[in-house]
């Protein structure tokens, strides 16, 4: 299978005053298309920094990052925004939906920045909502939806532009165990449809849904099990 993500010797150094802190100390791994990867580790282990770099929200201090064959390290902010828009889908712990905006318009959001026309946007958004099992909730505002439903809206938003990878950052952190199971089985279903998913979590039972677990500690990978 082709590699969607290839990290080679990624380092990320934060400078605070005269103190330097190396959050990633030369991380290398690759993810193939169709994989479901859980990234684990305690807080401060570098997993969030790695996630930000994967999400093109941050750039590594050194090392090479190929996303879908493209060298992301050499791109400027506008190109990165474009990459985030076309290649990546984000799911956050806190859902991060626009309040006071109907669910379907939240799902449409990436398509607005991708430059789709309104009719096409609506068609794709409705299809994505169907895919996550939210048909009929299109016009509900996030405040009228349960946590699980809000996270489904966020997943639909991540799916809508056919990204190469979905990046989920503690997607079940704010959910109870029943809803967690629902969301995780949704991820599993989506993965079976061929969608690559990378998920950060610190819960072992959540990580167990993924086919591969990468464990971080102190800026290094200490475990990679399939």
């Amino acid at each position, binding site marked *: 299978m082709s590699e969607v993500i290839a990290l080679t010797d990624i380092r990320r150094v934060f400078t605070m005053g005269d103190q330097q802190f190396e959050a990633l100390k030369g991380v290398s791994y690759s993810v193939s298309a169709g994989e479901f990867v859980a990234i684990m580790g305690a807080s401060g282990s570098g997993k969030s920094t790695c996630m930000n770099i994967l*999400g093109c929200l941050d750039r590594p201090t050194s090392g090479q990052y190929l996303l879908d064959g493209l060298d992301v390290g050499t791109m400027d902010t506008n190109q990165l925004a474009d990459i*985030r828009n*076309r290649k990546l889908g*984000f799911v956050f712990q806190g859902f991060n939906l626009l309040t006071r*905006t109907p669910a379907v318009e939240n799902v449409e*959001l990436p398509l*607005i920045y991708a430059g789709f026309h309104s009719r096409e946007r609506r068609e794709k958004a409705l299809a994505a909502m169907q895919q996550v099992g939210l048909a009929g909730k299109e016009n509900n505002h996030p405040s009228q939806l349960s946590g699980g439903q809000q996270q489904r809206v966020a997943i639909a*938003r991540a799916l809508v532009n056919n990204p190469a990878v979905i990046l989920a950052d503690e997607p079940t952190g704010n959910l109870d165990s029943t809803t967690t199971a629902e969301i995780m089985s949704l991820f599993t279903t989506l993965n079976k449809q061929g969608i690559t998913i990378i998920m950060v979590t610190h819960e072992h039972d959540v990580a167990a849904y993924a086919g591969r677990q990468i464990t971080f500690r102190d800026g290094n990978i200490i475990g990679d099990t399939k």
Partner: protein
Amino acid sequence: MDFLQTLKIALRALRTNKMRSFLTMLGIIIGIASVIAMMAVGSGASYVISQQIASIGSNIILVIPGSTTSGGLRTGSGGAQTLTSDDVKAIMSECPSVELAAGTVRSSGQVVYGNMNWSTVIMGGTPELFEIREWGIANGRGITQQDVDGAIKVCLLGQTVADNLFGSADPVGNIVRIKKIPFTVIGVLERKGQSPQGTDQDDTIFVPLRTAQRNLVRSQRTNNVGALIVKAKSEELLTKAEEEINSLLNQRHRITGGKESDFSTRNLSEILAVAEQSSKAMSLLLGAVASISLIVGGIGIMNIMLVSVTERTREIGIRMAIGAKRNDILLQFMTEAVLLTMLGGLIGIVLGAGGAMVVSRMLEWPTLISFQSISIAFVFSGAVGIFFGFYPARKAAGLNPIDALRYE
């Protein structure tokens, strides 16, 4: 991202905080309303002034006799009687740029009709005078050349004089006594209104020039006239006509070399220019005062936009993570600011125009609301939005998406 979508997002953002949006707009509303109202009042004032100046007549040059010295006392300008009816004839025949010239004499005295009396200005004039000043007859007939040649004792009343002596009755055909000499009223002049200096031009009686020279003015020679009023053929020829008159009269009065002229000329377009300039200065001043309130309103917009950017940091983070470019965010917040100011501008224009109408109704002061001032106000309100919206929008666009997403 297409502009319509940006507009929709901006509208939604403004709708979410209706009260705040309105209060923010209020600064711009008041600013634009005062600009519109001030400009309306100012241009109303300059309209009044130009009307008054037009009431004197157009392309006019005044020739005023100089001063004399008698027994060591110098009289003021116009004190000497150096101009004659022959000067008038010479100007008419020898100055090519002059269309018409008329001599006048001026006196004042008591006018009596029955048991009514009124103190007023008595002017001696010729038919040309009324032509130059574009002053028509409301009732009866005007002064003719025959009246002047024969020194007939007839008179034309200004509206103010007619009102005071006759009330609502028709004065034509009645006899009034001017300085105890009986004159037949042959007509009443049209209402002329105030002069630019604020005097009532209708508070005057006109009699034929020669009648006045013989009966009403004490002078050495009955041929003397006071001021001359001259009309140039066109506005362009005004200066040329003035030069021609100067050289002709200097020649006729044998004034050569360094000798001081015994007359002076005044060009009414100069007065007009000064008056226009002063009214323009007033409009500008009013406009400047109003613009200050616009700037204050703009600062209010900037303040609220900064608050809004801080409040919506998370939203900005989400949009950036999802693929919004910095320019998209910049444009979104700029659109919001411009929308605020333009909406405020529209409301302000309506309020300002309404206010100007109320002023003109209540104070009977003419106001002019020009399309120009409305479009300037509208463009200006948009410019205020762009100017004061830029800094907050740039701040929003410059946020780091990771920090923005984590912002609580």
